[in-house]
């Protein structure tokens, strides 16, 4: 039997933007197991949010993640609006969708570039990021910042999109379409990218369903899941677009799904910009108070479904703010995707779900005497099962009997 070796990737690895620690257990070239250690990025955002007012919370959740920095605010304001029954003007809904889709384009281009970088194909990286600058220019023009747009607020958006700007934005979109067509053809025809990504890191449809993966990761395996279609919010119910899926679930299909999604995003933005010409009105209903109650909000971030839960007790602060980011579900699929693959392919497989650890890290438990983590996954699982059982007792309901044997 060959000797088992551990190859550490991280926590501060040149290929990673963020600190995270992968332990690859390998036999020769083959990966046989994977451990993921995170916690370098936990900032206690849910707790901090309880000390901020509703308007400040939106700025705080914007800084959960710098790449999906409008997905969290949209989900958060939707949760606040759900809790307080706040009306949102129609024009604001269109502007939310426009900003959200621009963010999706910039995030997918960022991923495409980094994927090229992980494959050792730096030309793709430089090339894609050059065209990504145009998207950031539009964002800077509309919102005043290249990232962290600060556009969302409970009851609407902070800034309008002026009709004088629309022709300029459309011109940039036309240029972008040409560039994206170039990337689409380059990726689909390139023999190097084929050789490195086809049949690599395959996730089957059943694995996606078992792990509850979301976003482009799930759609590349043939699971048609998209919050924009399933629970239309913002302006997604008013415009015409389709959900992109692929069948094979390998890294190549994830790339193709993301590239084709950018074309859909451009189509959504163009339709929304046209609608802005006819939909008048304020962009902000300016709510003065949030009624007691609890609300949920979800939004399809570039990586999948973002979920926010907010409970209000009638004051100006949330009493509970819960965030669930898409990477939390997607990162769990890393282990099944990487098993049996070679070390050289591990980086691109781990990167293929577009992981975002700053989104994911929502809790930390520390033994203060020893300074070491006090809770491990079996403990967390036990706590969660106990809580579910307690809630069921309190509510007098019987939930579905779940078998957690595979995880424990």
């Amino acid at each position, binding site marked *: 039997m060959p000797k088992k070796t551990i190859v550490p990737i991280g926590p501060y690895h040149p290929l990673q933007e963020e600190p995270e620690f992968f332990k690859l257990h390998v036999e020769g070239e083959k990966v046989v197991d994977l451990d993921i250690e995170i916690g*370098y990025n936990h900032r206690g955002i849910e707790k901090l949010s309880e000390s901020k007012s509703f308007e400040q919370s939106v700025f705080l959740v914007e800084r959960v993640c*710098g790449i999906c920095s409008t997905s969290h605010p949209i989900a958060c304001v939707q949760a606040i609006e759900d809790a307080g029954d706040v009306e949102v003007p129609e024009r604001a809904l269109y502007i939310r969708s426009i900003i959200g889709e621009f963010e999706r384009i910039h995030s997918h281009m*960022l991923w495409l570039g980094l994927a090229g970088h992980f494959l050792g194909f730096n030309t793709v990286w*430089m090339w894609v*990021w050059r065209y990504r600058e145009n998207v950031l220019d539009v964002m800077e023009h509309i919102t005043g910042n*290249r*990232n*962290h747009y600060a556009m969302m607020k409970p009851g609407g958006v902070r800034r309008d999109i002026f009709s004088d700007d629309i022709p300029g934005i459309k011109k940039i979109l036309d240029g972008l379409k040409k560039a994206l067509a170039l990337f689409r053809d380059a990726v689909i025809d390139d023999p190097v990218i084929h050789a490195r990504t086809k049949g690599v890191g395959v996730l089957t449809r059943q694995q996606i369903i078992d792990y509850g993966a979301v976003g482009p990761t799930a759609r590349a395996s043939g699971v048609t899941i998209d919050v924009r279609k399933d629970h239309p919010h913002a302006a997604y119910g008013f415009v015409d677009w389709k959900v992109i899926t692929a069948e094979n679930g390998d890294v190549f299909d994830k790339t193709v799904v993301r590239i084709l999604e950018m074309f859909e995003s451009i189509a959504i933005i163009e339709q929304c910009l046209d609608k802005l010409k006819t939909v008048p009105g304020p962009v902000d209903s300016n709510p003065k108070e949030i009624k007691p109650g609890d609300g949920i909000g979800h939004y399809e971030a570039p990586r999948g479904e973002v979920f926010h839960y907010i409970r209000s007790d009638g004051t100006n602060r949330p009493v509970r703010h819960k965030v669930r980011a898409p990477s939390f579900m997607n990162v769990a699929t890393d282990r099944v995707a990487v098993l049996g693959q070679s070390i050289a392919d591990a980086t691109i497989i781990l990167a293929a779900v577009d992981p975002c650890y700053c989104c994911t890290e929502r809790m930390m438990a520390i033994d203060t005497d020893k300074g070491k983590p006090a809770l491990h996954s079996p403990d967390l699982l036990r706590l969660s099962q106990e809580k579910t059982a307690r809630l069921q007792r309190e509510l007098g309901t019987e939930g579905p009997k779940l078998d957690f044997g595979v995880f424990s």
Partner: protein
Amino acid sequence: MSFTVNALTRSLNVFHLSGSACNNCDIEILDVLTPRYDAERFGIVLVGSIRHADVLLLSGAFNRKSAVRLKRVYEEAPKPIVVVAVGSCACTGNIFAGSYNIFEPVCNYIPIDAFLPGCPPKPEAMISAIVKLIGKLKGK
């Protein structure tokens, strides 16, 4: 001009250490290297190991887990090394100041040579900071 300063400022080898950042400063740092700004034409390159570095870029506030690693990375760095805190989080803690998991601003852990505030700082601001830093090192 001493030999060390001359060698240090000729081609800056940059090591980028992301603390508990939100990724935004990190992608803007990478952005400086891509075609529109292209800092690599001045010999500024990202390196994979702290042992090769002339400049240490810090982004994000450091929580109690990453602060320990930060000190270790700083101890491993070849001296002299220039430390730049990129972004408001690294400078002051920004909106995360007061969190139960983030105790102190980065300047309390290791000595910082330059602060570059902004959320995130624009690539132009980063290039301007590099130019000022080289000027300062040369004693201008």
